[in-house]
């Protein structure tokens, strides 16, 4: 039951993000630009105690989230005065999956695939059933309590439609967040990983979302789980058949048992 991209209207080379975490300086300009451009409500001003990450996670009013990981490991050939320490920073975002759990789950048709290959929640249709929230294997989409509807990154579709790039990519001062043709970004990612390995960063790798088919690529220097990304993401909702078979067998057994006892 794996859905295929529609043949008509789907861009041959969809755009996407490449987030090179080795260039991220943790400035959170991406978080701020996203909130400002999209007019997102404030969703927490406290301290989490988790390094410099006081945002916590992606959610209904946070569509870019910078993850901070402090590791007692050396980064390549540099370390701090003989004490191995490195500070990993990654700007997390909605993956706009090729096979999107939220889109498959949505019973109202609110969540759709756009002309940019992105996954978009139509706010005039969503009735806040909350099924998308538990269908996402990355913990991206959520229902906004003050509003009732579900919200997530739109790929700045209003900017894309006037040939601008998303706010986060535009604001990023180091070019860690790049936006463009996904096939070109894939090449760029593998070239960057090769370069990093040449420089002694043995754990360098790219992450592209596995079976979900992420439109947000990442260059990482360690296991995805270190950053809070699943190593081998599965989209649970497309693997329904065994459950429906169990339901059918149970239903048949119910009918049989009723027939045998009450007729």
């Amino acid at each position: 039951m794996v859905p295929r991209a529609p043949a008509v209207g789907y861009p041959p080379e969809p755009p996407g993000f490449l987030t090179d975490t080795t260039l991220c300086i943790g400035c959170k300009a991406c978080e701020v630009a996203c909130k400002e451009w999209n007019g997102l409500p404030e969703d927490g001003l406290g301290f989490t105690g988790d390094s410099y990450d006081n945002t916590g996670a992606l959610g209904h009013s946070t569509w870019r989230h910078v993850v901070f990981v402090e590791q007692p490991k050396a980064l390549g050939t540099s370390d701090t005065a003989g004490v191995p320490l490195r500070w990993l920073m990654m700007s997390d975002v909605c993956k706009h999956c090729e096979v999107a759990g939220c889109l498959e789950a949505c019973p109202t048709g609110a969540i759709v695939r756009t002309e940019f290959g992105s996954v978009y929640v139509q706010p005039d249709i969503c009735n806040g059933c909350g099924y998308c929230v538990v269908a996402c294997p990355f913990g991206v989409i959520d229902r906004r309590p003050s509003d009732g509807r579900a919200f997530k990154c739109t790929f700045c579709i209003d900017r894309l439609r006037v040939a601008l790039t998303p706010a986060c990519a535009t604001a990023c001062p180091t070019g860690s967040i790049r936006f463009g043709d996904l096939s070109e970004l894939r090449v760029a990612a593998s070239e960057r990983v090769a370069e990093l390995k040449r420089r002694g960063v043995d754990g360098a790798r790219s992450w592209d979302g596995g079976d979900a088919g992420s439109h947000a690529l990442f260059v990482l220097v360690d296991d995805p789980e270190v950053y809070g990304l699943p190593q081998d993401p599965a989209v649970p909702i497309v693997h329904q058949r065994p459950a429906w078979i169990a339901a059918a067998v149970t239903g048949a057994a119910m009918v049989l048992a009723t027939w045998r006892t009450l007729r």
Partner: protein
Amino acid sequence: MKAVPLKPPVWTWEVPAYFFTGGLAGAAAVIGGLARDGQVRRRAHALAAAATAASTPLLVSDLGRPERFHHMLRVVKLSSPMSAGAWTLLAFSGATGATLLPWRAVASLGSSAAVPLGAVMSTYTGVLIGATAVPVWNRHRVLLPIAFGSSSLAAASGVLVAWGQRDRGLRRLLGVGAAAETAAALAEKGTPRRLRATAFAAGAVPLGLLALRRPRLAGVAAAVGSLLLRYEWIRAGRNPT
């Protein structure tokens, strides 16, 4: 290692309550459509109709935008268990309502249609939560429809027995449902203890009461257990393991 920050379900008590009433209605409709005894049929259909009437308000009130409940009928998307369920509920409501009408042909058609629809009603909610990223639900995606279906069968036959039906067959059906429910609970692995205990008791208590020749109490216990089972499954998903 950072855990993948999966979002917990946003659902509150209305959802497990609907799982219970919808499942009860479905199983009652299966009984009403197949039973030979006229009084069993009538009471089963009345039970199915009452439980169905309680179901839709529960679902509507759980929505973040309840006034947009009809958006569920914008698309037919059977690949989404929730869309499949919304349309099943609509068709099932129609069929169950038809069984109350005075025209025999219409009532008979409704009664027959409500059997397969009712079987879906009492199992699809298990498929629905199993098809999510919530680990404890996803791990048991095959077990859930079996547990919910057998629980609904026990609850529906239990309510009819408690209502005063002396039909031996109904008590046997209650025993079958409760036994299946107990077996499903024993097959559960890696769930919170509270859930496992509730699932086991929901089947074992009615079985015990049946053995002690207290069928009406067994019926009540089956219904209560069926409701608590749904509540505990949702609770387990809200507190991720």
